[in-house]
């Protein structure tokens, strides 16, 4: 999903994670009508959608392992299973060996990969990535995109917003362009059109 700053990309993503409520219209994701969602169901909804943010949003007082494990702990997974699952996910994002680091000891690209590991460890159907490469230099940005592609191959829908023309053109995926809060184009093997 592309669009200029202020076009409404982030707002759409916030609507999907129920950080904001729509002033009008209907939202249905995976058969769940958000209008019927009660406050106490919001945690359950968020557990089913993986989200990756531009500013990573890692828990600063937890190690890499604990950050990923946290996502599993809150859905009540047993400790043994968590110890088994987390290394596998960290392997997918290429962070094996850095389990005990604190987020502040990692580079931006590594932090973003921790965030991705955390988002996918519960095997969500959808992974929302809001400008995940926005704070990264091109080399690290591409690492992150490759990880997202890998996750998509495993069968998770990835909704990526970006400003980066280069990334969009190289990915050759469906591109939705948003402007002024409305979809202005939707192409299958699309290219970035400013």
């Amino acid at each position, binding site marked *: 999903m592309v669009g200029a700053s202020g076009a409404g990309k982030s707002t759409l993503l*916030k609507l999907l*994670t129920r*950080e*904001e*409520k729509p002033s009008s219209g209907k939202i249905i994701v995976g058969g769940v009508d958000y209008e019927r969602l009660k*406050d*106490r169901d*919001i*945690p*359950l*909804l*968020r*557990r*089913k959608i993986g*989200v990756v943010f531009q500013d990573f*949003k*890692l*828990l*600063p*007082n937890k190690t890499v392992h604990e950050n990923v494990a*946290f*996502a*599993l*702990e*809150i*859905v*009540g*997974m*047993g*400790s043994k*299973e968590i110890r088994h699952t987390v290394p596998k996910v960290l392997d997918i994002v290429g962070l094996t060996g850095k389990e005990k680091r604190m987020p502040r000891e990692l580079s931006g690209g590594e932090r973003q990969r921790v965030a991705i590991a*955390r988002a996918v460890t*519960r*095997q969500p159907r959808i992974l929302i990535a809001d400008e995940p490469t926005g704070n990264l230099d091109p080399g690290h940005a591409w690492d992150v995109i490759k990880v997202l592609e890998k996750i998509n191959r495993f069968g998770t829908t990835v909704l990526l917003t970006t400003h980066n023309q280069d990334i969009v053109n190289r990915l050759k995926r469906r591109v939705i362009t948003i402007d002024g809060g409305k979809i202005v184009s939707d192409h299958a093997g699309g290219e970035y059109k400013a």
Partner: protein
Amino acid sequence: MKGVKHQPYGRRKLINFGRVLHTGCVNFIRNAWLSIAATAVMVITLTIILFSVIANETFANTVRTITDRIDISVYLKDSVNEEQRQELIGRLEDFENVQSVEYVSKDQALADYKDQNADNLDLLLAISQTDNPLPASLRLKPGDPNRIEEIRQFLEQPDIKELQSDETSYSGDRKEAVDKITQATSFLRTAGIAGVLVFTVISMLIIFNTIQMAIFNRREELTIMRLLGANSWYIRGPFIVETVLYGIVAALLSVAACSALFTIQASAFDASSLGLLDVSFANDYFAQRFWPILLIQLAIGVAIGAISSFVATRRYLKFKAIK
């Protein structure tokens, strides 16, 4: 959801509870500086409360001791016969503010005198060479020492006055002292209780504020946990565990500090009396009630910690739009 095996409900509750406890303890250690700062404020709070209570109790005890000592002796002429005496006792006992009347006969007065002056041979010899010179007396205990004046007026009535051999013994200097003590005591008791309350409230506000600030610094963490779909108790729990730990550690330190202080000052002052604060009483009070005091301190610490973190986390846990 695919992939994640759900544990049975009860077991999951248990796992969650264990994790909340564990996370709280880990945070307590990882946020060492914050823990030290918050615990220090809490130690001061609890110590102030403890000291205020002990000081107030000690003071109340001093007041009790002094008030207990207040009595009035009515000295009777030797000519007063049994019947007159019984009548006077009856009238005094009927008087509203008189708690008790004790008759001290001449023989009894002499025996008391001998007891009191057992070491002083001169005084003993002086008295044994004459007839018993001591008058019989009635010893009155006032119900309310603040209202001694009423008794005085009662005893001044001419028909009672004529039975007395000497001035009633509260008169003169002693009456003034008794009056001053009784005035001071009621004021100081009230002031003591007010002091404890004021100190408690102030220190509770300080600790509340400290913990609120500590959590404010970590609001980002709370927001992230919420975005990941953690429910309120799972987020709040560790914070509460952490602040409850501040309370427990602070209570232990505070009682330990007081304990040490009492031990040191007990030997320094050698259980002497410092004016109205009877140090040895404070010592005994603390020593005899050590375990209850420790328990109450723990309870206060835990309560302050839990309530303040509960309130402080509240505002970050509402499911409203996040800016």
